[in-house]
């Protein structure tokens, strides 16, 4: 349970030595209680007090690392149920399902899809991060599957979905160094499974028939002093799987019960039973409500475009607007004859404006200066989107070399900037665009 600043203060040396960086022990204690400082900042705590405190002040949900090197991802570590209360921190990760019963060609086809769906959206890599390798009973085929994935050169986290410790032993010999997920500890095999992963501290996935059994299983595994855990919410039906996923997060964060303070794993593919659009719907729900690893049957752009974009949205810090990189974007095959249109770097504005330009099919250079990530009027009011900043961006971005067209279209809402920009950019014709992006296609078509 949470400690108050005074509870913590009682355990400090009360010397006000300032070694922690705070003026007094009490000030430091209050900060720790509010989650603003780590208790380990105080070098004079007794080991016993430190133990007691780090347990009590630890976040309610553990952060579990999966994968290694460039494929390392953090899961969990969330502190709120609703993103506006603070922010969601570690985005969910998507997995594609493979089985040892698949042919080498089927496996290769899915690997190719994973390679194909790999792109950048607003500065973030969009791809499937995990290969869920499901063991269905053929050990040789399972080992061959792992080898095939490994030899494909695809950078992924391995998730070994298997309950047989002997099979896992051989499987781990191939991928142990990649910090793979071992998924499949149950009430019957958990001791063997913990033994298997303990030395390398691999993330271990637990599964049980229902939530209460899962709770008891976590208790047993914690009893073996193992805490690198993921919680599988397996169920025969969508309702139970979704309820389990919701409850695990609520019990951890709202009830402050650390037994369920771990990331979850949901096999959306099994629940959707081959219905791709149902799988997308379910994965969307789980992206918003508390899935940590979401397993899909396969990946293609139809799945990826909404799911990855939704995830990017939901995991945005509500205090910091999403921004696109300031630069000159060629749209609809813009060339040396195309006009330039300028707007702000707030991601929402960019997408709406770029979308309307694309709809018009008129080639345009879209100029995005650094406007602080605000909307047009806000950026203008804040002095971040004005005549001089637009003019210097046009000069510095090399727009004059990219196009011989000297038309520059500015947002209708900042029509007042026209004169200022004209003074700064001799030779350019400054045109006032529409107030609303939805009227851009009409405007651009007339321009031609």
């Amino acid at each position, binding site marked *: 349970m949470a400690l108050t600043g005074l509870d913590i203060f009682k355990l400090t040396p009360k010397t006000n030595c300032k070694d922690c960086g705070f003026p007094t022990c009490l000030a430091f204690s209050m900060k720790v209680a509010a989650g603003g400082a780590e208790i380990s900042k105080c070098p004079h705590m007794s080991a016993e007090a430190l133990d007691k405190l780090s347990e009590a002040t630890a976040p309610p949900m553990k952060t579990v690392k999966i994968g290694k090197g460039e494929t390392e991802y953090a899961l969990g570590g969330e502190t709120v149920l609703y993103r506006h209360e603070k922010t969601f921190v570690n985005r969910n990760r998507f997995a594609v399902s493979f089985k040892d019963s698949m042919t080498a060609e089927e496996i290769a086809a899915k690997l190719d899809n994973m390679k194909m769906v790999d792109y950048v959206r607003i500065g973030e890599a969009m791809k499937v991060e995990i290969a869920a390798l499901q063991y269905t009973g053929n050990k040789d085929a399972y080992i061959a599957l792992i080898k095939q994935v490994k030899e494909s050169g695809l950078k992924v986290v391995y998730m070994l979905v298997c309950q047989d410790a002997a099979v896992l032993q051989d499987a781990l010999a191939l991928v142990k160094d990649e910090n793979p997920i071992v998924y499949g500890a149950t009430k019957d095999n958990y001791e063997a499974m913990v033994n298997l992963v303990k030395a390398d501290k691999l993330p271990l996935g637990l599964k049980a028939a229902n939530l209460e059994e899962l709770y008891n299983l976590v208790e047993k595994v914690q009893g073996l002093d193992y805490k690198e855990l993921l919680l599988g919410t397996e169920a025969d039906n969508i309702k139970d799987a979704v309820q389990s996923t919701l*409850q695990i997060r*609520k019990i951890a964060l709202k009830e402050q019960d650390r037994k369920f303070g771990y990331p979850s794993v949901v096999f959306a593919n099994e629940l959707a039973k081959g219905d791709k659009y149902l799988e997308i719907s379910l994965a*969307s729900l789980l992206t918003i409500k508390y899935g940590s690893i979401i397993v899909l049957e396969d990946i293609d752009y139809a799945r990826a*475009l909404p799911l990855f*974009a939704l995830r990017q949205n939901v995991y945005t810090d509500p205090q910091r607007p999403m921004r696109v990189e300031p630069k000159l974007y060629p749209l609809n095959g813009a060339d040396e004859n195309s006009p330039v249109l300028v707007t702000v770097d707030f991601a929402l504005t960019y997408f709406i404006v770029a979308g309307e330009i694309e709809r018009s099919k008129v080639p345009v250079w879209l100029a995005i200066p650094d406007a602080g990530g605000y909307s047009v009027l806000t950026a203008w009011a804040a002095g971040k989107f004005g005549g001089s900043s637009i003019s210097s961006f046009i000069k510095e971005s090399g727009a004059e070399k990219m196009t011989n067209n000297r038309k520059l279209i500015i947002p209708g809402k900042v029509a007042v900037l026209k004169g200022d920009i004209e003074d700064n950019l001799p030779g350019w014709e400054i045109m006032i665009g529409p107030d609303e992006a939805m009227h851009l296609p009409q405007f651009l078509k007339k321009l031609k």
Partner: protein
Amino acid sequence: MAFKMSVQGFKGKIGEVTIGTGYKAITLGGQNAVAFFEAEGEGANLPKVGLEILDIYPEEWIPSLQEIYKDVAQDPAQWAKFVEEKFNPDFICLRFMGADPNGLNKPVEECAQIAKAVAEAISLPLVIAGTNNHEKDAKLFEKVAAAVDGHNCLFLAATEDNYKAVGAAAGLAYQHKVGAESSVDINLAKQLNVLLGQLGVKNEDVVMNIGCAAAGYGFEYLVSTMDRIRLAALGQNDKTLQMPVITPVAFETWGVKESIAELEDAPEWGAREDRGIAMEVSTAASIITVGSDAVILRHPKSLETLRTFIGALV
């Protein structure tokens, strides 16, 4: 600690609003949880799924949809009847694209006749969506509300600019249901509900449209606005936010790049129809996840998917 389910006891409850008449009438809302599928909730009517039709031929829709509707889409009443018989959604949304002053700018009298014909051709509840030109919508809804008198339709929507005209015609004179449209902002949503109340429109005659965005297009604002509205309505028992919510998903998702890019422009993206349905179901499932009580969809496959999705959650 022993295992115990986490149950939030909310004191507030979302109101119930009925649209349509007869045995096919639908009721939205009723739950005392953030979304209908949360364990602590009870009394929820399942989210309703409607299909969109237009007052004009759907020139901009994808070819496969035009193919389905090619024999009926010249006549909105026939189109509506066809949708009811073939797909049987929970409701039909008739959207007056043709009345838009930036488009065909059809006179409101003509629109009123279309609305009347559609309402009489079907027994499903009818949602009437305007042009989004607030001035035109005020005139349009006034005529349409009179023409569909007795059919208990929902009008999308009254906004800050035209709520007096729309509220008076649809809500007061003809006792239809009034959609209150705000743009992804809890304060605007609340203000508009209060203003409609002051006008005399009863809370149980109002459904909110708090705005819509396609997944990836600032959808986080929608999630947080919806979360905050529901937490205020349920947790603080704020009566001015306890109206059910309808979301016109199709109006947004079929206009974004992911749905409109042609195959030749983005070959690796695959078929346009596949992407369009995926955007539509993802966005609709997401907004239902955070509590929306009704969604308007375009593709029959999306309707089928969302029905399965909603049914599987309870």
